[in-house]
């Protein structure tokens, strides 16, 4: 059994394999997000990498067999539960082989519903120039014996594979550490053998839906190559191009990767339960008690129900806009435990307002569209990639500027975003972001699980309150 890390403890299972030089940790950021979104992720260390550093068996057959065994053990007892197979780069090729095993009825692998491949090495021999292969072998095939130099080479390798936006420092450090702790024999074996193996016939055409994500900045395994080499192996697949992203999408774009995986799971009919959908025992008992009026309980329960999953599909905004909205919501009310953006998008689609808007802003749905476009323009301007692709710290930085009126079209402001009619001025941006904060905070605070978190029990008011002075408490208040 291979070592692995797991994220999330309920919901559809996604088994994830990593890239050459990486480990299960490469999925750490995306895994955490998916865990919060109600999916379970198992990120396996392949033989020779991460904690599997001393496990041997580096060719395609050995690796896929080891993964099959691991998955079988992990799923024992839940053999009918739906699951997905996923892999990045090298791990993508192994994932396709494992998927074939599952389709062929391998013991303990039933219930496979789809594949998630990120910049996969295709089942055929990887289209790689010999000079490139030689360069990689020279760079990382052996330790130079000088730890600093090794670290430097590893860092260069990571950077060479990164797209327009440099990795977050801690993510880059982790990736470098993975390179340094891998078994270099396994590294050489992949370049000299695994990547050259032709599994295209063995994998064949899989009767599975798949999404294949690839960065537009990637040299060898970009969207076009994937369309030609990987897509035909799936009966129903989509290639999704990540603008400005390099080869390392799970490290570069964990949020977007997680978003696409969630949408994919939804499209397969797999529901993702929100953490906030479950209330603690004490709070739930209070809500059920006769301290709460029937209509109050009914309103709170229906709110719980309407925000019980992450399955919402946007109606007023495009999928891309909605992903940005979710990214923004995560920065304003982080770890809310439910789809705050979805609740607001639903309101935009229904056209129900709160009775007013700033006269400087267009009607609500259009105001959001324009605000999100302005954020994207600012992100492109500052970091060359859209807002959704930014690191959380960079997103926060832009939002702070937005609230200071420093982002906007026209000559004023430190982040000039062109003069497109789709962009706000600095003062409009400031008002829009105020509106955004207010809406998100309102929606966040109104959810019963937030009330539980805050310790608010004012809804338990049947019979009224008698202990209203400081230092007094009703019997159910803690």
């Amino acid at each position, binding site marked *: 059994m291979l070592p692995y890390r797991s994220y999330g403890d309920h919901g559809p299972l996604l088994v994830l394999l990593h890239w050459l030089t990486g480990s299960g940790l490469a999925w750490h950021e995306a895994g955490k997000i998916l865990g919060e979104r109600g999916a379970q992720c198992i990120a396996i260390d392949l033989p020779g990498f991460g904690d599997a550093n001393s496990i041997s068996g580096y060719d395609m057959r050995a690796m896929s067999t080891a993964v099959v065994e691991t998955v079988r053990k992990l799923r024992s007892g839940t053999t009918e539960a739906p699951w997905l197979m996923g892999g990045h780069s090298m791990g993508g090729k192994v994932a396709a082989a494992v998927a074939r095993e599952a389709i062929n009825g391998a013991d303990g692998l039933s219930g496979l519903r789809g594949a998630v491949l990120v910049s996969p090495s295709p089942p055929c021999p990887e289209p790689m120039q010999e000079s490139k292969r030689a360069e990689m072998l020279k760079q990382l095939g052996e330790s130079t014996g000088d730890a600093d130099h090794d670290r430097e080479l590893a860092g260069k390798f990571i950077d060479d594979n990164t797209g327009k936006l440099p990795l977050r420092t801690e993510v880059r450090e982790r990736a470098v550490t993975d390179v340094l702790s891998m078994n270099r024999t396994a590294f050489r074996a992949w370049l000299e053998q695994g990547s050259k193996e032709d599994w295209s016939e063995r994998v064949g055409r899989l009767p599975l839906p798949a999404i294949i994500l690839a960065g537009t900045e990637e040299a060898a395994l970009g969207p076009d190559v994937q369309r030609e080499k990987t897509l035909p192996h799936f009966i129903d697949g989509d290639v999704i191009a990540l603008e400005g992203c390099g080869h390392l999408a799970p490290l570069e774009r964990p949020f977007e990767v997680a978003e696409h995986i969630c949408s994919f799971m939804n499209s397969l009919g797999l529901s993702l339960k929100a953490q906030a959908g479950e209330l603690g025992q004490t709070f739930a008992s209070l809500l059920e008690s006769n301290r*709460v*009026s*029937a*209509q*109050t309980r*009914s*309103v*709170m329960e229906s*709110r719980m129900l309407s925000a019980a999953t992450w399955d919402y599909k946007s109606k007023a905004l495009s999928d891309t806009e909605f992903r940005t909205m979710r990214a923004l919501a995560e*920065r*304003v*009310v*982080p*770890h809310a435990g439910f789809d705050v953006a979805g609740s607001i998008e639903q309101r935009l689609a229904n056209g*129900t*307002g*709160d*009775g*007013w*808007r*700033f*006269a*400087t802003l267009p*009607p609500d749905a259009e105001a959001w569209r324009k605000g999100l476009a302005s954020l994207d323009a600012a992100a492109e301007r500052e970091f060359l990639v859209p807002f959704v692709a930014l690191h959380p710290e960079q997103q*926060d930085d832009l*939002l702070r500027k937005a*609230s200071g009126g420093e982002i906007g079209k026209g000559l004023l402001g430190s982040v000039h975003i062109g003069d497109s009619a789709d962009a706000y001025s600095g003062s409009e941006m400031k*008002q829009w972001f*105020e*509106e955004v*904060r*207010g809406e*998100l*905070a*309102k929606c*966040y*605070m*109104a959810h019963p699980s*937030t*009330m539980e*978190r*805050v*310790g*608010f029990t*004012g*809804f338990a*008011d049947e*019979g*009224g*309150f*008698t*202990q*209203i*002075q*400081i*230092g007094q*408490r009703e019997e159910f*208040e803690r």
Partner: protein
Amino acid sequence: MNELGRLRSTMRRFREDESVDAVVIGTGAGGAPILATLAAAGLSVVALEAGPWFTSPADDFATDELDASKIYWTDERLSGGDTPEAFGGNTSGTGVGGSTLHWGAFTPRTDRRDLKLKSESGDGSDWPLTYDDLLPYYERVERFLGVSGPASYPWDPTRKYPTPPVPVNGPGELMMRGFKALGMRAAEAPVAALSVDYATPEYAERKACVNRGFCHQGCRNGAKASMDVTYLPWAVRSGAEIRPGCFVTGFEQDTTGRLNAVIYREQTDDGRATERRQKCRAVFLCAGAIETPRLLLHTGLANGSGQVGRNYMGHVATQVWGTFDQPVRMNKGFPATVISEDSLRPAKADFAGGYLVQSLGVVPVTWAQSVARSRGLFGEDLVRYLADYNYVAGIGINGECLPSARNYLELSREKDANGLPKPLIHFSYGKNELAIADHGAKLMTQAWQAAEAKDIWRCERTAHTIGTCRMGESPENSVVNAFGCSHDIANLWICDNSVFPSSLAANPALTIMCLALRTAEAFLKS
């Protein structure tokens, strides 16, 4: 079902082609007392209310802020200027009972001096009436509503409230502590919520307040003196008809210019709207300081002075928040239980007029929005601060806003579902408002420091919708006379906060009800 709900089935009904003595538009603080007074005098009266009829508040109103949007006026308004005001739940309600359904029921009387601010300071505008004109009405309305207040009101010892004060809650206690430390007076506030069960000959017994604290989301037991439990049952029992779901879009006039019919859209239960027309001999327009001028501008009526929509005002409602060591749980008890009028004319002030101070308990969703909007927090900072909810208390002012030519309401180019242009309100603080906000914030910060609050911050906010159809002696520069009668159209009367020539520091509803009785009596005399 409450008393009014029970009366609905036996309510008198008028035919549309029967010319009733009066149509009253709106059933809030302006319309309801008029409706009751006219019906009690034996007149045939029909009230047109845009919102629904909540016949059983005990079942209709959940203790939930989002669900309460059904009692907020949510037709979109465009808010412009340098100090754009939040409308919707912040200012305006809907339903039979109007804005009093979501009303905070804080009922100070105006200060005598505020009615003559222009004479006193050279700024603002004098009212064409005096405090002594209003006094008998204040006493009548307070008695009718059962307003609760202290046995001895520090700023007016002659005043007697009909019921004892509601219990002081956490924020009230803290304000008392802070003001005492500053050597200033604070007292239990006059509020239109009952501290004891109360009955009058005109309506059935109402129960005492049970301290739920969700007054802005609709009172469930009738303790709050919203119009649906006070003036409206009296009106219906006296023979008035209330038609819910009726939004007025226009009028018809006879050859002399008098109004002889009201055109409205009635929302039927299946969600469709039907155009209707009620014949009448007089019209009372009581739709509030936004809908009233909006309808007049849309119809082009009663605007010979050019003053319709002018001099829009909102109270300076700056707040100061702080976090305390002990749980406050400010959601419990009446939202504002303590008042101070010491700042109505502060010494050495650099502004005209003054402000009231009140303790603030705000329910969590509303508070979260204020924090996110005004304090500007987001991310972990926001979520962490919101988690302090139980330890937070506020204090706020209601401050004079001077009428200004810069501030006005006009019709925008956007239309709403009723086919009327959405209102566009321009509102910017002038020097006086800014000075009041600063003065208030400084005082309240000191009070909160004295009460040992931590993490103190200032929240800018404006409240209430005032002005736009000002009353005055001259048809040249006012829309209605001192009794609310239009200078242009003899059988059109206006009574709501739109007729206020200046904002006054007091919260408006109690004064609106006084004006309503005065308007109704003047009409009966004419």
